[in-house]
């Protein structure tokens, strides 16, 4: 009976209520800790350290694409004192177009369909709105998806890399440059001029042909030259 008497004391009830209150609060605290937030420490460190990754290397036509990618990775390893390495298959992707890269990455299990969709949307947003807005939209989409911690960390690293690339090469994601290179696959003016010369010369050859074989060849040349003019001057194949 003494025990029951002890339990009926009001201070015990107050003590329990405080305990429940604190336990409840600590639960909410842990939820707040788990809330996903993008962390740009890596990007800020990249900025402060002044790492130099020279993307201009890509423009050198005499080096193969795989060699260019390897050289960039070497630069990164040298700058960051890391020993990152990729399988050769990943380097070979440098020769593929966007669709092929996604297809192979999905086959190899490097990317999921969701990753592909998110990346496609990101690329489209860069083209339409520029890199800064694209990053903001990407962040919002990722937060809405409530991904697992591991997946979220992947996306966080991805955005850190994008920001670092943009910081090191401000022209890399310029909307107008992207549109220029993606929309038109533009050829230099002198190739267009050369195609024009080829068409004129082919027309002359057609005008001067005597035999059936010569005229046939001249016709083929005019057709090929017209195609060439369309490809070199029109901007698309």
């Amino acid at each position, binding site marked *: 009976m003494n025990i029951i008497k002890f339990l009926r004391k009001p201070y015990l009830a107050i003590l329990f209520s405080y305990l429940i209150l604190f336990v409840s609060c600590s639960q909410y605290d842990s939820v707040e800790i788990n809330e996903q937030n993008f962390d740009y420490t890596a990007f800020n460190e990249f900025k402060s350290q002044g790492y130099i990754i020279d993307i201009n290397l890509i423009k050198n*036509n005499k080096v*193969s*694409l*795989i060699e260019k990618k390897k050289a960039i990775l070497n630069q990164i390893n040298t700058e960051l004192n890391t020993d990152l390495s990729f399988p050769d298959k990943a380097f070979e992707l440098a*020769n*593929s*177009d966007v669709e092929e890269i996604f297809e192979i990455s999905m086959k190899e299990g490097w990317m999921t369909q969701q990753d592909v969709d998110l990346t496609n949307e990101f690329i489209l947003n860069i083209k339409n709105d520029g890199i800064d807005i694209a990053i903001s939209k990407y962040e919002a989409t990722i937060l809405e998806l409530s991904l697992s911690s591991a997946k979220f960390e992947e996306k966080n690293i991805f955005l850190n890399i994008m920001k670092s690339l943009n910081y090191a090469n401000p022209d890399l994601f310029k909307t107008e440059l992207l549109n220029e290179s993606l929309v038109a696959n533009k050829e230099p003016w*002198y*190739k267009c001029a*050369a*195609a024009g*010369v*080829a068409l004129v*010369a*082919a027309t*002359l*050859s057609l*005008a*001067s*042909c*005597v035999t059936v074989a*010569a005229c046939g*060849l*001249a016709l083929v*040349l005019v057709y*090929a*030259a017209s*195609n*060439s003019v369309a*490809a*070199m001057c029109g901007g698309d*194949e």
Partner: protein
Amino acid sequence: MWKPGKKTLFVLMILMAIFGGLTSYWIDWTVFETNKGVLREIQLPIIFLVLSFYFMIPYLKKIKEEKKNNEA
């Protein structure tokens, strides 16, 4: 029908050869790694090369005719 003279044929032949060389120099050889856009790259040099031979044949014929006439 247009009948070009010996000099015209010679000039055309040389011009085509020069353009053929130039366009060969402009070829982006990296496309051969991917095999994409290869035709687009080699199209112009081939056209110029064929055109150069195309104008060379009547030019040589004219020279032969001239030689024959001179001998006669």
